[in-house]
């Protein structure tokens, strides 16, 4: 009976895998992002938030506005540490341009589509805004609201996209496939054929996370690595540690841990410590706690990123548009670097809190490190 149930479950899982695969496994996009990862960015050296990949530009001459301007920002919400760091970046960047920006109006949608739709309507009809920055909560639901806003004023979208080409530009790093390619290729390069990989993921059904996994999975399959499990942890450290302990207790050797986001990577590593096992090869992200542990325990690791410096770019983009300049568009693709053994030391800052995202590009901004929760 038990075996029947297990078989039935496996079949169900296999079909679920297939249906996901079609939606989040786009070979063309995979190829495009793989190329973008190795492109040389254009723009000022050492300032990745002001750089872009590719040559396409749009002309913003018709939006030119002299004198002090009001920039409005409709934020999906501040519901995770990534967005907390990003919000500080955005505010500090605006602070840098005090002479040009009369006022920065920020409205927080608290993670609700309906609130963000009415937020955008209120900002547009208020007539105060000279440009509107939108970080959409979900793609489909926010599209009509963004389209309506485009008719009245220049719109800049960043992070998650919308299903319309009307914004002046859409700012984002390379993307989820790129994240999965960087981490997947690193793990594949460190392990022999047939080695075991455990995949730890936050939750199912989110496109930016699913594409990370599908890209890494493709690479593992190609390299002949075996994915012994793909588990959802809900970003919960206790759950992550428990899941990894359970896998360790199954007696199967775990050679590598692949993660679609790094916030629980140290919890996963602790499970190996507590069991008295050597650390696996691991891919985390750019959080301080992971980087410190990597350095301290000499891990074989990589820190791919979805850089929070894109929040700075949003302000830069809005100002460029209001200056009537040429801006990268209709997509402003930012470089998406990964932290490697060679660059590790330069990203560690002992003053910063454990979940600070090191690729914030915020080190030169006013208020660093205190504004980001760091010690002086």
């Amino acid at each position, binding site marked *: 009976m*038990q075996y029947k149930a*297990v078989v039935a*479950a496996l079949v*169900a*899982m296999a079909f*679920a895998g297939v249906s996901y695969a079609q939606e989040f496994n786009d070979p063309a996009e995979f190829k495009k992002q793989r190329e973008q990862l190795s492109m040389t960015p254009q723009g000022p050296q050492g300032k990745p938030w002001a750089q872009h990949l590719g040559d396409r530009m749009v002309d913003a001459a018709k939006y030119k506005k002299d004198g002090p301007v009001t920039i409005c920002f409709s934020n999906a919400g*501040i*519901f*995770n*540490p990534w*967005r*907390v*760091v990003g919000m500080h970046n955005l505010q500090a960047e605006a602070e840098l341009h005090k002479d040009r920006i009369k006022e920065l109006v920020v409205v927080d949608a608290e993670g609700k589509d309906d609130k963000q739709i009415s937020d955008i309507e209120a900002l547009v009809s208020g007539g105060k805004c000279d440009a509107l920055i939108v970080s959409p909560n979900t793609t489909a639901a926010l599209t009509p609201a963004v389209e309506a806003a485009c008719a009245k004023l220049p719109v800049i979208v960043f992070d998650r996209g919308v299903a319309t080409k009307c914004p002046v530009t859409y700012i984002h790093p390379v993307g989820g496939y790129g994240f999965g390619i960087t981490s997947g290729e690193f793990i594949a390069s460190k392990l022999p054929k047939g080695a075991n990989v455990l995949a730890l993921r936050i939750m*199912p059904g989110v496109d930016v996370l699913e594409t990370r996994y599908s890209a890494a999975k493709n690479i593992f399959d190609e390299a002949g690595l075996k994915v012994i*499990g793909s588990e*959802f942890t*809900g*970003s*919960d*450290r*206790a759950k*992550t*540690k*428990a*899941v990894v*302990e*359970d896998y360790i*207790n*199954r*007696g199967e050797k775990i050679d590598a841990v692949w993660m679609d986001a790094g916030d*629980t990577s*140290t*919890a996963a590593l*602790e499970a190996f410590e*507590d069991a008295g096992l050597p650390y696996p090869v691991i891919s985390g992200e750019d959080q301080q706690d992971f980087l410190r542990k990597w350095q301290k325990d000499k891990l074989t690791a990589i820190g791919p990123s979805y850089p929070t410096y894109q929040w700075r770019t949003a302000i830069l983009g809005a100002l460029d548009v209001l200056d009537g300049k040429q801006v990268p568009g209709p997509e402003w693709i930012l470089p998406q670097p990964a932290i490697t053994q060679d660059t590790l030391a330069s990203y560690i800052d002992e003053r910063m*809190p*454990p*979940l600070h995202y090191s690729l914030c590009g915020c080190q030169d901004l006013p208020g660093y490190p205190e504004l980001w*929760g760091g010690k002086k």
Partner: protein
Amino acid sequence: MTPLSETTPMRRPVISLAKINFGLIVFIILYAAIASLQPNYLEAGLFMNFLRRAAPLIILAVGQLYVVLTGGFDLSVGAIVTLVVLAASILINGDPEMTWPMIGVLYLMGLAVGLVNGLIVTFLKVPSIIATLGTMLLVNGIALAWSGGAARGDLPDNFRDLGRFLMRDVWLIGSLPLAVIILLLFLMFAWWGLHGTVYGKRALAIGDNPRAAELAGLPVAATRIAAFVVSALAAVTAGILVGGFSGVSVNAGRGMELQAIAACVIGGAQLLGGRGSLWSALFGALSLFALFTLLNLAGLPQALRDSIQGVILIAAVGASAWRDRRKT
């Protein structure tokens, strides 16, 4: 608390089937299932590890039981766990010398939340499910506002050890986690509170019929307030173990209040009060945790796991209720 008088009837020496806690049966069945999938769970070391991971839930369930016996709910405990984990990391901020004084501060915070819960329920006569829902939101809000929505600060190793440290090479059992010792001490204390003093009888009487208990001259208000305080202090203890086991996280205690209530019910405690014992909470929590582990080990997809968990929970509680109805 007054010691129990000598007139308590002696327990009958023969253990009848009906006396065995239902939660224990469920636990044994689930653990046997775990062992059939993964035979090394029968080793003492892995069982100890299982206990270490279950310890926070057991402690929360026992605290919850104090409130459930008096006929109430305490929904604020999950939020207290979150607050404890975040507050500990911010207050201690990686300095090992601050660990013990700040643990004292954490217990004071727990005491405050427990008192607020108790006072609102007894004097404002707000139903406990609403009152503690309110404090749950309040405490969650405080925790998030204080931490700015992201984990800050750091937990030093001596704090982490409370939930993480393992004594290795212990005679007979192989390894002994510190969390299990804390769990045993807590259980002894909780057992004494419930069964060694008159408090337990009062709580049962109040949960069974608060009006009658009041007319009989029992200190209803004090008993209720004490129950919420114990529950909150248990939540602080659980929070320390959770923080120790896995470190700082903004969603450390999410959903734990409902797990604690479910654990009490699986073990045979009656919601709305009047029946239950320490064993209800202990074995209920062990069963629930065994269920989580089993579903983890079975490697089923998430959606299927959640559904199976729901079905087994309803079945266990239903069977427990049915068994009790037959007895009376």
